């Protein structure tokens, strides 16, 4: 199943019941202020944020005449093009050839870091990599047990420390073990933390330094896990995490619900960090590579 099909399947339920203003505008040669209000509502509902929505509307107004003559779908195409452009990002996805390749997963509480790691472990194991999962979330109760269950499912090796242990110490041990046993991928689960907690953010910076000491230029990949249901605060989170350690990509989770994750567009635009994966369910195969075109389409459906 392609990403577009997956998303459509998830959306079918809601699409059937709610009319889509942008679809209604198809084939129209001109539109009224009320039409533009309807489009703005779609953008707002997708968590674009009021200022980005306003900019998009201005863009439509500005190009109004040209579109009016351009025939059907022009308005939709204009918006889609704009979103796809915002999502373009030339940044490279970290260091792919490092061995072991160390990947950090960071984010606020409850976005789905552990689940994402479980699914990604499956992806990389299928590619033939020897994967090690490192439970550096020593704070949340049973976080390590949860990750261990995913290690079993995906056939990855697993390393943990004692509950409440220093995450950097657990990480050091895991990296040494990975080198000794020849693991090619080390996926590091970190404790969820609110970006406003200075000491916890400093702890992340420390983990990055510790990783670099054990494995040259680690972490090679740092993925910020964002919950698609998040609102404007998503951008604030991304900024703060990027300040604590350089991000190489985003994972947008829970896209199988009705949330669109529109704030991710602003994050990509501002931080120049690409979205790499999207999460569309709780199953082991529910992690998909990101496709800008399908994502943009999804945003404009309501």
């Amino acid at each position: 199943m392609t990403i577009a099909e997956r998303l459509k399947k998830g959306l079918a339920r809601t699409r059937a019941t709610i009319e889509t203003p942008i679809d209604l505008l198809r084939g129209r040669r001109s539109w009224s202020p009320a039409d533009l209000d309807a489009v703005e509502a779609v953008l707002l509902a997708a968590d674009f944020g009021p200022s980005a929505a306003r900019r998009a509307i201005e863009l439509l107004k500005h190009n109004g005449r040209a579109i009016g003559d351009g025939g059907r779908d022009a308005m939709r195409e204009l918006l889609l093009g704009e979103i796809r452009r915002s999502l373009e990002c030339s940044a490279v996805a970290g260091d792919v050839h490092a061995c072991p390749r160390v990947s950090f997963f960071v984010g606020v509480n409850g976005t789905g870091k552990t689940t994402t790691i479980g699914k990604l472990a499956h992806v990389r194991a299928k590619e033939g990599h020897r994967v090690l999962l490192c439970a550096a979330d020593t704070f949340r109760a049973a976080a390590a047990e949860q990750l261990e269950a995913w290690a079993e499912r995906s056939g990855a090796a697993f390393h943990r420390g004692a509950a409440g242990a220093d995450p950097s110490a657990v990480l050091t041990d895991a990296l040494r073990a990975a080198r000794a046993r020849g693991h090619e991928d080390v996926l590091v689960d970190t404790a969820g933390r609110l970006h406003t907690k200075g000491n916890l953010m400093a702890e992340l910076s420390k983990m990055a330094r510790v990783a670099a000491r054990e494995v040259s230029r680690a972490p090679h990949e740092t993925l910020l896990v964002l919950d698609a249901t998040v609102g404007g605060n998503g951008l604030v989170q991304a900024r703060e995490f990027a300040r604590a350690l350089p991000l190489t990509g985003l994972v947008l989770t829970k896209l199988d619900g009705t949330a669109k994750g529109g704030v991710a567009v602003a994050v990509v635009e501002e931080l120049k960090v690409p979205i790499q994966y999207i999460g569309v369910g709780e199953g082991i195969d529910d992690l998909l590579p990101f496709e800008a075109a399908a994502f943009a389409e999804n945003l404009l459906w309501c």
Partner: protein
Amino acid sequence: MFQTLSERLQGVFRALRGRGTLKAQDIEQALREIRLALLEADVHFQVVKQLLERVRHRASGQEILRSLTPDQAVLRVVRDEMIEILGGETTPRLSSSVRFPSVVLLVGLQGSGKTTTAAKLALWLNHGGHAPLLVSTDVRRPAAREQLKKLGEQGQLKVHHPEEGRSAQELLRSALTEARSVGHDYLLVDTAGRLHVDEDLMTELCELKEIGSPSETLFVGDAMTGQDAVRSAAEFHARVGLTGIILTKLDGDARGGAALSMAAVSGCPVKFAGTGERLADLAPFHPARMVSRVLGMGDVLTLIERAEETVERGRAEESVRRFRKGDFTLQDYREQLIHLRKLGPLDRVLSLIPGAGALSVDSEAGEREMRRALAILDSMTFEERRLPSIMNGSRRKRIARGSGTAVEDVNRLIKQFTQARKMMKGLSGGGKALQRMARHLHSYR
């Protein structure tokens, strides 16, 4: 930093002063500003629309058009309406049923914080003299039940935790049996996180509700949620019938407009708020404070509480006493700085103060300055901090070297400090006022 709504409204109405009476279209301009503030805070656009309708209706009344401070008058109407949506200013309580145990069902999306909240709520009930029993019916997420069990151990809470291999329904039934036979007055039921569009799981939830006939069904919602809050809360409400909301992760810096969306669409009051990672971090919800926060008008009460948490009482009083007597030392100064830093980065502290947004304080520079001052103070010996007068040239040089600053920086700090101390000595009554303030700060809880 956000310009606060009250400043924006002042701007709108200032431009209108001297024009005599206000017209309906002047109100419209104010409403546009309010709309933007609410949207920026993630309140759902349709909730915003309805709210503004009501405000428009009330604001077109004569008292606002004639008011000398129309900005304040409009704001008051907005705040009243918002507080109303959030359930009004009442002391939250959990309803109980006639027969033991009263069942409290916690529902919500994945990752909203149900499990943690369940444990927090049990602790809160415990402290209120109740004997709650916890049960997790989450057989889907790996180690979810394990998580609740461990939280229970941390908080010395009773958790119903039979061995493997049961369905959610069975778990609830056996928990009910245990609660009845042991005599627990509350049964808190943690459920698996689920999407509101997941037909199977929503059906399971209905079955759980049937089995437990809960006296409370609480929606656990993340304060950082965006526009989707409306859909999920509405769908949960339609399927299982909510009685209240618990807002989690309120210790972040999200404006939390989702609270309004959830409350508006379900018609349920927000009862509690999760304010931190410790089990004790569950507080009754204060609509008025939340409204200030959503409107970007600062949250002084939260700042006071945070200050109260970080400043230890005895030490603060000691500082204040010495403040008054004028023998405030560099040691005290250093402690003050450390406390201030504990409140969080400077720009966040400022963002909690209404109107500080307009000060356009260069918080980055302020932060740097504060860090440098601390480095200098840290490089002094205890003796030097206590008796700045012993500071000679070679000591200053050593301090500068130790803190990575120049001797001039050290001199400047000492000079500023000496001047400040002189000023304090001059203010004899001021000391008393400060002491009163400190006491006030601590009597808040």
